[in-house]
């Protein structure tokens, strides 16, 4: 990925076209929230969609469709957007969670690590929040399929690379022995989507894995 921690354009296009799953769309949209240049790219990709839509062969519509709509307009109040609950979070995530992070049900998953499972999709796709104490180490693991991690608070390192709030790490089948180390200081909180259960190396890790739900 170039530049470091910024998602590449094929994700922008697939987001804009509507091709991403709920979890991937949320992570990508939340990531874009931190980066105006990505928002501009999304807008450009949506403009492509808008252009393609506008240039399709117009379909026949029912004769009374317009009148029917006008008759529905009276008395239908526009539903106002709910106020965002946690302003520290990127807006798409705040809207999705609809409550502050502290009010979520965090489950311990090891020393200094806890998680909240937000969504499980088809093919075992999972969306979750990970909270790790400063200095903690996430057990070494491999991946089946793609893992996207967006940092919301705090920071961590994988080898030389540091991931800070707003940056995204993408790991896939080729990422072996993935062993993120949390930087010292405040808790690190990440929004993560995995396509299949990760493969934890240690025996203890594998024993507890079914219970922590990763």
């Amino acid at each position, binding site marked *: 990925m170039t530049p470091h921690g910024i998602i590449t354009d094929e994700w922008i296009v697939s987001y804009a076209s509507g091709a991403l799953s709920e979890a991937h769309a949320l992570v990508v949209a939340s990531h874009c929230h931190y980066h105006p240049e990505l928002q501009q790219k*999304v807008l450009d990709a949506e403009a492509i969609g808008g252009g393609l*839509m506008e240039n399709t062969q117009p379909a026949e519509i029912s004769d009374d469709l317009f009148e029917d709509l006008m008759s529905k307009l009276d008395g239908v109040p526009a539903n106002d957007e709910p106020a965002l609950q946690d302003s520290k979070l990127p807006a798409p995530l705040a*809207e999705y969670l609809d409550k502050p992070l502290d009010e979520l049900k965090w489950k311990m998953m090891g020393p200094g690590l806890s998680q909240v499972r937000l969504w499980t999709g088809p093919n075992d796709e999972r969306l979750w929040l990970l909270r790790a104490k400063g200095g903690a180490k996430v057990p070494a693991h491999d991946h089946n399929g793609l893992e996207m991690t967006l940092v919301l608070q705090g920071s961590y390192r994988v080898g030389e690379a540091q991931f800070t709030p707003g940056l995204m790490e993408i790991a896939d089948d080729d990422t072996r022995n993935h062993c993120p180390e949390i930087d010292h200081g405040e808790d690190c909180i990440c929004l993560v989507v995995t396509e299949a259960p990760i493969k934890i190396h240690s025996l203890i890790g594998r024993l507890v894995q079914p219970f922590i739900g990763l």
Partner: protein
Amino acid sequence: MEEQNSAALLSHEQLVVLVAKNKDKEAFKTLFYHFAPRLKSYLLNFKIGNQKAEELAQEVMMILWQKAEKFDAEKAKLSTWLFRVARNKFIDHSRRQKYATVNAEDHMKEMVAPERTDEPFEAQERSTLIIEAMKKLSTDQRTVIELSFFKELSHSEIAAETGLPLGTVKSRIRMAFQVLRNELGELR
């Protein structure tokens, strides 16, 4: 803008302003008859029934009526805005999912300042630029763009459909996007 032009002579963006400010039904009607058949046509790509496509197109236009004042022509073209609403409506309907929105009006941060040359294109010319831009793509590139926008296929689904390696699918989408952005750049 004191002259009362007939709705047909105004740009779509100017018509939205009339809808927002005056709840102008004639202006809205012009927009409806332009966009509703096209929105329906776009929605029919996704193999939903005729009636459902019409229903969703109608809902999208209803949202335009209700939220016209939130539309900002400085930030997006009307077709872009309607496309976004239609995409989200369709996903909400078909997958029972809420599609996270990047450029929702109330979370727009300061965007990169667009390089705007004043009114360089007539509205008509503007709306067909995408057709010219699509012609600049190679057949391979056009295929991945069409599978993305007209079938909502993910990278791995496109790989399965075309028999291409996943990496090739991703790089073709990237290349195609770069070409289209270059071609459409003047719009921003």
